[in-house]
């Protein structure tokens, strides 16, 4: 039981001040922009909810949002099962464990624009390792600056490269916490490998997988730097995800009102979807 203690607020105060400074003031700025129109010179006019209406009905936003959902959906259905599979195949102990963990975590510690740049170099049609291999060894025409499909495949593969390890490491942490007796009991009960996975490993990984899915959802939904550096949103608008479009509008065209309205809608979607995921994934715990 936790002690009831209102003075605990003093402990939380520094965090509160710091995060509020960073979150509330900019958020208010965004809200402010989203309901006003400006023609420069710090002159603002009340605009009401017009920007929201404009964003919500614009085809450009719908397209970017659609691309964003497609991207996040593909990321989740590839990275989560793949990460679990790799975690299951990893050794549980021995000298290879730290080696695996360190090498797998490495991509996550590379600055995001370097990730983009690295994949750019890697996929250059004639002088990149992958680009050369595809075009000259396999004879498959591959140039992501020309072909939207190639661009999509590349940003997906890049994200799989970048972030699958997060799922692997979380799932692995869940797996190694299972006591050996569970496997022995299952063996004696005559459980198949699938039954062991379904009734022992998966339930024990549930907490960490919830974290993994939430983090992967939030981060892939908010992704900006890597695809921006790699494709710049192109060719055409084919890889212009929500964040990329937002920055284009805000900083490229300096349409602050629509950009701010879009930011708020964007944030609301992320928040709602995260809440939905979390509720769905923890629903069984609260039952019974």
């Amino acid at each position, binding site marked *: 039981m936790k002690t009831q203690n209102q003075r605990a607020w003093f402990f939380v105060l520094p965090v509160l001040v710091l995060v509020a400074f960073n979150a509330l003031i900019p958020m208010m700025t965004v809200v402010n922009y989203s309901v006003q129109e400006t023609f420069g010179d710090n002159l603002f006019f009340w605009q009401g909810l017009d920007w929201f209406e404009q964003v919500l009905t614009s085809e450009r936003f719908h397209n970017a949002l659609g691309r964003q959902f497609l991207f996040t959906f593909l990321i989740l259905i590839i990275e989560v099962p793949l990460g679990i599979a790799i975690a299951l195949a990893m050794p549980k102990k021995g000298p290879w464990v730290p080696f695996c963990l360190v090498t797998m975590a490495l991509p996550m510690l590379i600055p995001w624009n370097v990730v983009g740049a690295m994949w750019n170099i890697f996929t250059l049609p004639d002088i990149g390792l992958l680009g050369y291999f595809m075009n000259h060894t396999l004879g498959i025409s591959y140039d992501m600056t020309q072909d939207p499909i190639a661009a999509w495949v590349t940003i997906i593969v890049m994200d799989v490269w970048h972030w699958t390890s997060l799922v692997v490491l979380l799932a692995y942490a869940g797996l190694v916490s299972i*006591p050996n*007796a*569970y496997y*022995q*009991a299952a*063996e*004696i*009960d*005559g*459980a*198949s490998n699938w*039954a062991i996975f379904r*009734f*022992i490993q998966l*339930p*024990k990984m549930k907490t960490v997988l919830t974290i993994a899915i939430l983090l992967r959802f939030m981060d892939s939904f908010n992704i900006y730097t890597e695809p921006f550096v790699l494709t710049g949103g192109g060719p055409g608008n084919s890889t212009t995800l929500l964040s990329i479009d937002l920055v284009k509008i805000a900083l490229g065209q300096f349409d602050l009102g629509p950009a701010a309205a879009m930011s708020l809608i964007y944030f609301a979607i992320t928040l709602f979807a995260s809440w939905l995921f979390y509720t769905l994934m923890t629903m*069984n715990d609260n039952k*019974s």
Partner: protein
Amino acid sequence: MAQIKLSNLRHSYSPNPSSDADYALKKIDLTWDDGGAYALLGPSGCGKSTLLNIISGLLVPSEGKILFNDQDVTALPPAQRNIAQVFQFPVIYDTMTVYDNLAFPLRNRGRDEDIVKRRVTAIAEMLEVTDMLTTRAANLSPDNKQKISMGRGLVREDVNVVMFDEPLTVIDPHLKWKLRSKLKELHQRVKATMIYVTHDQTEALTFADQVVVMQDGEVVQIGTPVELFERPAHTFVGHFIGSPGMNVLPCEVQGGGAFFAGEQLALEGPAKGVADGSAEVGIRPEFVSVSQNGNGVAAHVRKVADVGRHKVVEAIANGSRIHAIMGGEAPNAGDAVKLEFKQSQTRLYKDGWLASTQAEGV
């Protein structure tokens, strides 16, 4: 149901064992009769869990064979041996209901649902968990979880042996005796061979018809609880069983007689094949009587502990500590006393092993 025979079993966890010390099990020959209730008793690290895992098939022994009804099963995996095992910590499948947990081993073996239902209902009734069948197993208390893992072992009607690996470790003390008597009752009803591993003598002695005592990877003695108590085959058994354990006193053997502190002690019967030299005499505290001015070995009382039903007197005689259990009036610490040993319970041990034989007609 089966008779289980272990022949010439040796096991080492190191790949290239060189000396005896590398073996967790040093040559075990044992037969477990069909339908018996056995306890495997020994201190932590004596190899009892290793032995258990070899019988269940979770470990493959380095040497030797395991026979179920004279059929060699050494190479068979656990699932094909038809055995059941209950672990130290309750293993349950969190996401399933109690019913599904109990049905799991049967369903894995492709039994018909109506057989499953009949068996699960019967077992649930025996374990008194019928009213919990529809709850999620994750929500049970530890003792009920342990009941369910026992139930998963008992639910298969053809199970050769049910093994318990210190199953009461995580159970609250006041529930321990309840589960223990439940187990005993279950054994009488299902008549399966059961092997109960523990380091707790009370658990072993109350559960088992036959207790196998192990030390350092070897079986020291097999016997009924009474035999183990009265005639320990090894000083270790004497020491390990009983509270306090058997008194073991150094003595000199001369011409077949045992001498302690210059006095000859009357043994239960003649010592066979014991050469002159040093040996040990074993006598349980229950059979040592203390008197202020009677006969026996001279000693002085170091302390007296009142443990409720009786008193435990700790006396020093010739530098050796001797415990005696007595009811009624006990001497005070510091008193000079005489200790008398009951002849029929005084035994000679050479190199740890029992060396005296019982006199005829006793």
